[in-house]
């Protein structure tokens, strides 16, 4: 059994759908972190079978829209003095800005690059989104 020490002050992102841990890790630029960070992939989970976990030994700004987009079932625990002081409930965001980019080569976003990339939620179950400009529908992080 792999053991990772608990953290004193920081953030634990738990129950990340297995396979998406690295995506979250990269999005949060944790590869450049100068503090202790642990990415645990395929950890055993009674509920999920396997899951990914990220432990961050520091307090950093987290974009909850991004986490909700990747996996609204993930949990974010804020740790102080080695104890969980707050649990953040994630939601599938209604609108996401500059998190995903449109892949439609006919979309204006493919040629003009100075404005926000905006997507609106279409289907909460599928977590599909519609590009504000060209209406192309994407499922950025499939649920299965």
């Amino acid at each position, binding site marked *: 059994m792999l053991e990772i020490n608990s953290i004193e002050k920081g953030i634990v992102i738990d129950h990340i759908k297995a396979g998406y841990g690295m995506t979250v890790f990269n999005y949060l630029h944790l590869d450049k972190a100068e503090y202790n960070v642990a990415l645990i992939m395929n950890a055993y989970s009674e509920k999920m079978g396997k899951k990914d976990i990220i432990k961050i030994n520091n307090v950093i700004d987290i974009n909850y829209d991004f986490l909700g987009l990747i996996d609204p079932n993930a949990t974010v625990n804020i740790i102080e003095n080695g104890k969980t002081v707050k649990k953040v409930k994630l939601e599938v965001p209604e609108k996401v800005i500059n998190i995903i980019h449109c892949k*439609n*080569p*006919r*979309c*204006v*976003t*493919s*040629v*003009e690059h*100075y*404005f926000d990339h905006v997507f609106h939620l*279409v289907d909460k179950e599928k977590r599909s989104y*519609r*590009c*504000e*400009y*060209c*209406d*192309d*529908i994407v499922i950025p992080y499939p649920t299965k």
Partner: protein
Amino acid sequence: MLKNRCLIDPSDFTREEFREIFDLAHQIVADPEKYSKSCEGKILATLFYEPSTRTRFSFEAAMLRLGGKVIGFSEPNSSSTAKGESIADTLRTIECYADIAAMRHPKEGAPRMASHYIKMPLINAGDGGHQHPTQTLTDILTIERLRGGVENKTYGFCGDLKFGRTVHSLVKFLSNYEGVKFIFISPEELRVPEYIREEVVKKKGIPFMEVDQMEPYMGQLDFLYMTRVQRERFFNEEDYIRLKDRFILDPEKMTYARPDTYILHPLPRVNEISPEVDSDPRAQYFNQAKNGMYVRMALICKLLGIY
């Protein structure tokens, strides 16, 4: 209140707001002379980043017939776009000179993006294979003049339904009305985009069929909306050649249509309607073009807060 609003997509206006535009358009058709000085002192900018005949002339004729003036360009190489200027900067500059603008662009969503940078009313005159809301105004005015209203009718759409922006806008508009049914006739590769099928038609519970033959369904239609397979939308010339002549409406196929089925087409036409059909009284596509000018006159007036 339509003053200073933008029309980028049919969902930008309510049914009541569209009604205001059509009511004014019908009045203009009845007495165009009465409106010949309505826009004196106003300037329309026509920003056409993609070739157009009907739409640009129609906008320009509309403004001129309202007593206003027109500035603009008809292809991007004659503007600062050729120097690499962004769409946003071009629009912000044009706003210094014009009161209202109509914009066509080959990229989908370009007018929506541009509208975020300006305060003057902006009209989407067609963006790639996405939307063309003023063609919809033209189509609806034609339908109203032919049949009194749009409700409780079956509409057939034939040809390139994937990139056919006029189809997307018309379907979006009609989906807000009771009793409409759609029959989408196209090759499988050119079916309506997912956002139209799932987010508009299915979400609103509208009965529809997707088929790849024309004849068996002609008798069910109140209107048949033909479209051109557009070479400029294909990245692959072979696909275009394979699909372009898949549906051709000719006098023989017209025998399957009811005497009261009208044929519409946003034009330009290539091969999809044979010229022999033009003399059939059910062919209404050239009347559409004329109605387009009147309804754009009404739209310009409303967005400028005149009437």
